[in-house]
């Protein structure tokens, strides 16, 4: 029943100063998946492999049901839209209209009305050299170009970098509308918490070239909480026994501040132990990420 837009199995890439993988990752079709992780965690390299811009040393990749072993077929490329993290400097001398004409030639699905509409909504003038555009303007232009052929799969690498808050909001709205048909897929990377919260259905955590975990967004935010618990018998050792415990801090008196990745079970535990739940606080994405990174580092140390 489950269908994937992208499947990586056992993908590895060895570089003198970076090892990517082994990656086993499935990106579900019809959803928005966001990859988050610290700088240099391998997000952009993974994008490069999915687009056949770079070859893996081991493992296999399937995009929209087609294996990339023999390179990426042109017909498949037409079904994909890609917004790279950095614009290519060799296009600096090119006018916006020229780049659009180039895309129009290659992508059968190119819809000139859609393209003009996107430029209008984003307030972009394509009649100037790409290198002359401001950073945000160029970003908006490249974004419009990546969408104008109505791709089935959209890969966005840090889509909002350089955008002002208004343009950012417009971009989010465009992406929601793009997804409304229900059969399209977005895979994106982002450092912006609010962006991930607004857009993503699934979140992939990456660090040091590996996938730490894939989570359904609402489930993730619904299970990571910081609980303030108090009880006469409570001490640090007992507090550490809370299900999903990822950090205990003394909060004065007989109250402890305990972070858990399994909030529902943890609250049952509090009740069973006869403790009092003073308050609860949901964790933000960055806090969840640092807790996961810490766990990962600790488990690596044990091996």
């Amino acid at each position: 029943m489950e269908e994937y837009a992208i499947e990586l199995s056992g993908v590895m890439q060895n570089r003198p100063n970076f090892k990517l993988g082994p990656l086993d990752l499935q990106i579900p079709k019809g959803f928005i998946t966001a990859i988050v992780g610290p700088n240099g965690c391998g997000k952009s390299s993974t994008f490069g492999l999915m687009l056949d811009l770079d070859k893996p040393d081991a493992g296999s990749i399937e995009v929209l049901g087609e294996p990339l072993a023999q390179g990426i077929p042109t017909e498949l490329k037409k079904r994909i839209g890609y917004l790279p993290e950095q614009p290519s400097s060799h296009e600096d001398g090119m006018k916006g209209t020229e780049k659009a004409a180039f895309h129009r030639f290659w992508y059968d699905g190119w819809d000139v009305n859609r393209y003009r509409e996107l430029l209008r909504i984003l307030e972009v003038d394509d009649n100037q050299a790409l290198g002359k555009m401001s950073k945000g303007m160029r970003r908006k232009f490249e974004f419009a170009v990546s969408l104008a052929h109505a791709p089935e799969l959209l890969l966005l690498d840090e889509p909002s970098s350089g955008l002002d808050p208004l343009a950012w909001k417009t971009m989010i709205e465009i992406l929601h509308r793009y997804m409304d048909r229900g059969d399209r897929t977005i895979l994106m990377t982002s450092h912006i918490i609010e962006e991930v919260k607004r857009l993503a259905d699934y979140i992939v955590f990456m660090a040091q070239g590996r996938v730490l975990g894939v989570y359904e967004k609402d489930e993730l935010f619904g299970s990571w909480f910081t609980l303030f618990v108090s009880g006469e018998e409570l001490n640090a050792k007992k507090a550490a026994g809370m299900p999903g415990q990822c950090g205990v801090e003394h909060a004065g008196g007989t109250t402890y501040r305990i972070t858990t990745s399994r909030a529902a079970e943890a609250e049952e535990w509090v009740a069973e132990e006869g403790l009092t739940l003073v308050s609860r606080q949901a964790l933000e994405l960055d806090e969840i990420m640092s807790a996961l990174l810490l766990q990962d580092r600790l488990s690596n140390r044990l091996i």
Partner: protein
Amino acid sequence: MRLPIQLNEQSAEPLYHQIEVQLRALIVSGQLTEGTLLPSIRELAQQVKCSVITVKRVYSDLETEGLLRTRQGTGTYVAQVGEKERDRHRLAAVIEAMEQAVIAGKRVQCTEEEMESMFKEALSKHYE
């Protein structure tokens, strides 16, 4: 269409449950009448800032309960809700809300008397 649904991210209640309770209330109270076309899954997810997976779950739960129906390709509509059905759902939402209030009170160690007086106060505030 924008549905008046408010989510509390800090609550222990899962998001899908919060949405389900509020949407059910809108339907059984008659605020959403039979045949009303609901926002698409992606649209509602965007409005309340949750994932489409959560909204899908809500729509399918309420469809199983007979409060919604989905027509292939056109969207999700409010179904016909019988009088009896309406009454049952109507009270269920209230009972649930009261339980939540009691839990909140217990959390800050309210006594039964305190709870009662607060309940009466709330009653007299809203019912003249």
